[in-house]
């Protein structure tokens, strides 16, 4: 999670962008591009699609940035645009929806933060690609640490309880993939 100072600075950049500051736009892109690319790349098969979707995302972002009333809501808004743009771009909406509908989910209050953390970033990075798209979707957002569980729910358009449950099952799936990799 970014520090308080970093978070406030990012909010400051958003307001400066809204005022038309070109340098602030460059700084905003520089900060968010690796994180957005990481997320978008997890949603598509081809890297070229990820770059295309990312470019379209920035076009949409700068076209409608003035609609962001509270700069604190910017990360959630940004990931939502990135997700929707990627889905529109690759036409994977149906596939993602089918995948999430077929998941075993409940609204039981399972808190993913109470579960043991993953330490090996490289192993997690490799294992993410072996999960179902819907699990990969929420787990990537969770690991990028920019959003709360409630905000992840807003991005993927699902209630908080569903996200907690989905995260729980996604982490379980990730653990089993990691265990299989260790056995090999």
């Amino acid at each position, binding site marked *: 999670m970014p520090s308080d100072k970093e978070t*406030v*600075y990012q909010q400051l950049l958003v307001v400066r962008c809204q005022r038309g500051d070109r340098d602030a736009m460059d700084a905003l892109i520089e900060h968010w591009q690796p994180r957005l690319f990481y997320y978008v790349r997890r949603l598509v098969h081809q890297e070229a699609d990820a*770059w295309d979707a990312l*470019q379209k995302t920035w076009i949409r972002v700068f076209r409608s940035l003035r609609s962001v009333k509270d700069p604190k809501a910017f990360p959630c808004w940004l990931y939502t645009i990135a997700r929707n743009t990627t889905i529109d771009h690759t036409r994977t909406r149906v596939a993602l929806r089918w995948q999430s509908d077929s998941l075993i989910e409940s609204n039981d209050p399972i808190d993913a933060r109470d579960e043991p*953390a993953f330490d090996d970033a490289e192993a997690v990075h490799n294992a993410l690609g072996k999960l179902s798209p819907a699990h990969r979707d929420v787990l990537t957002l969770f690991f990028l640490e920019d959003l709360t569980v409630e905000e992840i729910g807003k991005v993927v358009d699902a209630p908080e309880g569903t996200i907690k449950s989905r995260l729980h099952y996604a982490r379980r799936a990730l653990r089993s993939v990691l265990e299989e990799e260790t056995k090999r």
Partner: protein
Amino acid sequence: MNEDRPNFSEQLLQYETPDEALRQKYEKEIRAMFEKQLGPAGRGMWWFWAVFCAMQAILFVVVGIWSYGMLPIWGTIGFAASVLFALVFGAICVQIAVSGRLNLKTQPPAMAGLAWAFVVIMVTIYMVSAPDSIAGLRMILCGLVFLVGAAVFLLASRTEQAELRTKEKLLEIECRVAELTERLSQDS
């Protein structure tokens, strides 16, 4: 949020190794979002507009001098405003043509603002110089339509800018406070 794993996201990002050629292509496209590179035809077009503006300025100077004394003072002021507008607009055209780049974030809004200011000035002159008759009243009413629209646009824009400036100042203060808190916690 998952505070128990600081820097995990940063570690994760390090393992993403994008294709260099695709990344460069993307960065080029992102730059193109804000800056339009002009080819010889594009530059030629801006040179044409620059020359056109210069000719307009010369024309208005000549007509202004020639008609001085024959027209009401507002007519001469109108010509002077037109000369100024043509010169500033022409200067922007020259800047674009020489650099071969159109900065989409600054130059088109500057030109739109200039055109807006010019219309407001000319409509005001048109209204002020209206004769004391029914025709003059009609001129004033027509001018008011433009001026009210322009005023609403200006007010909305100024209010939005003021709100954003206040937000910006507050966040700057918040940023400094966070910086100080960070320093204090490091010292203690």
